[in-house]
């Protein structure tokens, strides 16, 4: 007999559901009761606390006043100021005593307060602690001012919603007078004076907000100065580059720079690291270094920083920049912010209306004492004010800001901040977080690209500094209304449209187009270029050169290229068309051309005859806007930057040089004299070898390689290692070359990955014989070819390790010497 499962009827199901709900309800009610009890307990505790507070004895101001008066009567000769000092002293003592008595019976509280007292006192032991103490104290005092503002409706009741940031900001503002006139302030001013003094090797100097170390004293172009290299870079100890290395050893980084290990420590973020510094650096004259350091204060007070400081404020900034500086920056930030608000007419009216009687100018505050301490400071202010081209308004706001510590200024600044706060909350939070992170570790944070997390690459990458303490992140932000702030798009448009770009060194047609494109690209990072310029940047340089008549690959005489003379100006005319011309002695361009019709030359012939021929020069008419080469010039004259340019670079150490490593825009590293000599020699070597002539002019002869490209087309796998068939290798030779290339890479794959994109010139002949260095040395020895280096003006980059290997291996394959590479084994340590 089988028993069937009875089908539950609807009533049973409902009963079951109901039972479940009852249970849940009971549980919920239980939780609710518990919560109620908790709330009740809390309420009770709060009420108890409030009752307790209410029942606390009040500070007897009458008794204290009596005591003060009695004391003052004992010393009738005191000045009013001395009387106030004495009164305050007694008041503070009495208040402290009163507060101690309040907690007489609370032992745990007494203990906590005793420890707090000790902690407070100990803060004086460090400069940082002392500054923080003053700032926070000022903040606590400033709270009263803000409190009144809120209580009287002058400030909105939501004012405090800014939390700790506004608190510390008020602290900074209120503390301005103290900070500026304090011992610390004086010390910092003295520090600026000292910075003008002589430097010595090993000193750290700050240029453009970045730290550099002085490597050695140097004389360049008859100027005395220093060779400086960026400081603050680190490399993780697990990087293969530093395997078996110790302090003092030399390592070569991926960017090809030679660096010395100078120290080791444990970084909070990256763990065990070596600090490293380049063995060769940039030259900066003593005069320029002084200018740079003198300008530091001004730079700290640049508009971006001020805005940033205003947004962030707080003691944490103090830990980064130094308390005195911060006080100034913080308050000046308020002022600038106020200025920014004022700059929009509607905002001016709105604020003026709000301010009413509260106008800063109407407050009779004596700032003479303060002013006496601000002489140097004010000079910097004046520069800034002048830069902002709104001297009257800015000055009055600054004056107002300087009086902030006296109370009403705090209010005005806070009001201004509050207005701004409502518009910038998210930005503020982000930046605050960044800065707070920075403040926890005042050590300049090295640049590190995201890739370093997975592959321990050296930190010198082309990644922009995200936010290091040494480079305040405000620089990423441009205040919107500063009159002299570079409005990138407009100014650059004007430059290319009106003034044009001048070719600084004579060069081939295609190279000139590339240079122009690179210069424009560098001036319009990202997608900021106006469309006509963007079109030009994106154009194929060879096609563009052909359009402009600078390159004619079909020329029957072999004279396929024009040589663009130094001084030629390129620009876009009002129609957006590219025109060019050469100015006369007066700087006037007689005719703007759209197509070149002058002499062309055979690049190969030119290479061989350039040192003697005057033919082209003689045939050229003066009015030609783009002229053929001045053939009587030596090659070095063609490529070497003129002294004026060189001097200009030296005069402007703050412009590009030090920041190139961390910019995304790929700019070539400025060449040293040695670099130039090396490059010229390499080019001469190449040009003297008939087989290399095609490379001397690089891309200008690309089209001639069509037939040899077919080998690559037939064997696409070769393209992984070879971009071009540079020596007309046949299939068999190319495959053999590829096998050799793979063998070289396989010798030390990790190292190859690091090195392949670095400049080969920094490897060949390097003292530290890494596997890559040994291979490149061998490739040079067997091929006789040297690495190519970047052109002076253009942005053609130095030949990379991979490209150099590809070229030399092809050459070696062509010469039938691959076995010399195949049999080579780099020595391992």
């Amino acid at each position, binding site marked *: 007999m089988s028993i069937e499962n009875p089908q539950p009827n609807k009533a049973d199901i409902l009963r079951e559901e109901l039972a479940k709900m009852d249970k849940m309800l009971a549980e919920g009610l239980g939780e609710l009761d518990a919560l109620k009890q908790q709330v009740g307990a809390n309420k009770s505790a709060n009420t108890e*606390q409030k009752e307790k507070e209410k029942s606390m004895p009040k*500070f007897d*101001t*009458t008794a204290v*006043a*009596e005591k*003060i008066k009695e004391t003052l009567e004992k010393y009738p000769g005191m000045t009013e100021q001395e009387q106030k*000092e004495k009164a305050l002293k007694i*008041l*503070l003592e009495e*208040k402290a005593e009163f*507060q101690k008595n*309040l*907690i007489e019976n609370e032992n745990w*509280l007494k203990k*906590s*307060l005793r*420890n*707090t*007292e*000790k*902690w*407070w006192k*100990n803060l004086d032991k460090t400069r940082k602690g*002392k500054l*923080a*103490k*003053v*700032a*926070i*104290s*000022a903040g*606590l*005092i400033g*709270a*009263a001012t803000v*409190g*009144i503002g809120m209580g009287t409706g002058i400030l909105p009741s939501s004012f405090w919603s800014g*939390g*700790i940031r506004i*608190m*510390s900001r008020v602290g900074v503002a*209120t*503390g301005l007078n103290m900070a500026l*006139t*304090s011992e*610390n302030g*004086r010390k910092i001013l003295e520090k600026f004076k000292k910075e003008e003094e002589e430097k010595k090797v090993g000193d750290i100097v700050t240029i453009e907000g970045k730290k550099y170390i002085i490597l050695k004293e140097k004389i360049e172009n008859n100027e005395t100065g220093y060779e400086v290299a960026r400081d603050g870079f680190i490399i993780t100890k697990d990087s293969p580059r530093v395997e078996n290395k110790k302090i003092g050893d030399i390592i070569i980084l991926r960017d090809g720079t030679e660096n010395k290990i100078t120290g080791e420590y444990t970084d909070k973020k990256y763990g065990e690291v070596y600090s490293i510094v380049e063995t060769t650096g940039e030259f900066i004259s003593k005069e320029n270094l002084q200018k740079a350091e003198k300008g530091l204060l001004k730079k700290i007070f640049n508009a971006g920083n001020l805005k940033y400081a205003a947004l962030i404020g707080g*003691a944490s900034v103090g830990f980064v920049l130094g308390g005195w500086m911060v006080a100034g920056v913080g308050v000046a930030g308020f002022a600038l912010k106020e200025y920014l608000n004022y700059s929009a007419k509607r905002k001016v009216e709105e604020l003026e209306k709000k301010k*009413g*009687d*509260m106008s800063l100018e109407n*407050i009779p505050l004596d700032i003479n*004492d*303060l002013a006496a301490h601000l002489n140097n400071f004010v000079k910097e202010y004046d520069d800034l004010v002048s830069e902002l081209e709104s001297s009257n308004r800015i000055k009055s706001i600054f004056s107002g800001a300087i009086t902030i*510590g*006296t*109370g*009403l200024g705090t*209010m005005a600044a806070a009001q201004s901040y509050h207005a701004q706060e409502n518009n910038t909350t998210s930005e503020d939070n982000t930046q605050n977080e960044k800065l707070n992170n920075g403040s926890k570790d005042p050590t300049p944070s090295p640049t590190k690209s995201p890739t370093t997390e997975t592959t321990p690459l050296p930190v010198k990458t082309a990644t922009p500094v995200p936010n290091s303490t040494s480079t305040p992140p405000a620089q990423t932000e441009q205040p919107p209304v500063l009159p002299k702030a570079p409005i990138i798009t407009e100014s650059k448009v004007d430059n290319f449209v009106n003034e044009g770009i001048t070719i600084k060194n004579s060069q081939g047609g295609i190279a000139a187009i590339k240079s122009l494109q690179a210069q424009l690209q560098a001036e319009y990072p990202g997608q900021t270029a106006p469309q006509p310029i963007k079109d030009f940047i994106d154009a194929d340089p060879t096609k563009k050169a052909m359009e402009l008549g600078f390159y004619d690959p079909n020329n029957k005489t072999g004279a396929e290229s024009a040589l663009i003379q130094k001084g030629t100006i390129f620009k876009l005319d009002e129609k957006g068309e590219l025109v060019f011309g050469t100015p006369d002695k007066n700087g006037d361009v007689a005719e703007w051309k759209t197509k070149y019709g002058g002499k062309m030359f055979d690049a190969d012939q030119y290479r061989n005859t350039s040192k003697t021929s005057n033919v082209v020069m003689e045939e050229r008419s003066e009015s030609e806007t783009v002229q053929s080469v001045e053939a009587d010039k030596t090659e070095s004259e063609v490529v070497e930057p003129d002294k004026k340019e060189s001097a200009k670079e030296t005069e402007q150490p703050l412009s590009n040089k030090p920041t190139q490593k961390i910019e995304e825009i790929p700019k070539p590293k400025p060449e040293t004299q040695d670099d130039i000599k090396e490059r010229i020699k390499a080019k001469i070597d190449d040009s003297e070898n008939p087989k290399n002539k095609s490379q001397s002019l690089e891309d200008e002869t690309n089209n001639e390689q069509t037939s040899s490209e077919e080998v690559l087309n037939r064997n696409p796998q070769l393209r992984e290692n070879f971009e071009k068939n540079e020596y007309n290798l046949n299939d068999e030779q190319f495959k053999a070359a590829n096998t050799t290339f793979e063998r070289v890479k396989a010798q030390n794959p990790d190292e190859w990955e690091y090195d392949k994109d670095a400049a080969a010139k920094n490897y060949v002949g390097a003292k530290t014989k890494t596997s890559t260095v040994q291979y490149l040395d061998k490739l040079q020895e067997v091929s006789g070819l040297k690495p190519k280096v970047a052109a002076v003006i253009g942005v053609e980059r130095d030949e990379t390790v991979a490209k150099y290997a590809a070229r030399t291996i092809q050459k070696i394959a062509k010469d039938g010497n691959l076995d010399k590479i195949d049999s080579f084994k780099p020595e391992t340590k």
Partner: protein
Amino acid sequence: MDKKLAQEKVRENIITLFDIDKLPPEKQEETISKIGQIIFQAVLIRVLPLLEKEDQDTYNKLIDEKAMPDTVLDFFFDKVPGFLDIVTEESENFRRESAEVLKKVNSVE
């Protein structure tokens, strides 16, 4: 309170009351720290009893470990709702008491 009165009150702050801004620089720093200490102590007397035992221990630990003042304030902002109101009250309290004392000193014959 009308605006003029408010303005008067604002100007009558701790610094102007005692002409702290006219003190020698080193004295200014010292004085401001002393006042800050008093206000901070007053704030602590109110906020420490509001903390849970665990948080009281954390506070003591912060102090023992010589934390920076902003870290300590951060802690209170995090743990004590209305902390800024307490700070404001205590700061204003001290300002008011100071003003009262000075007024009485000047008025007592």
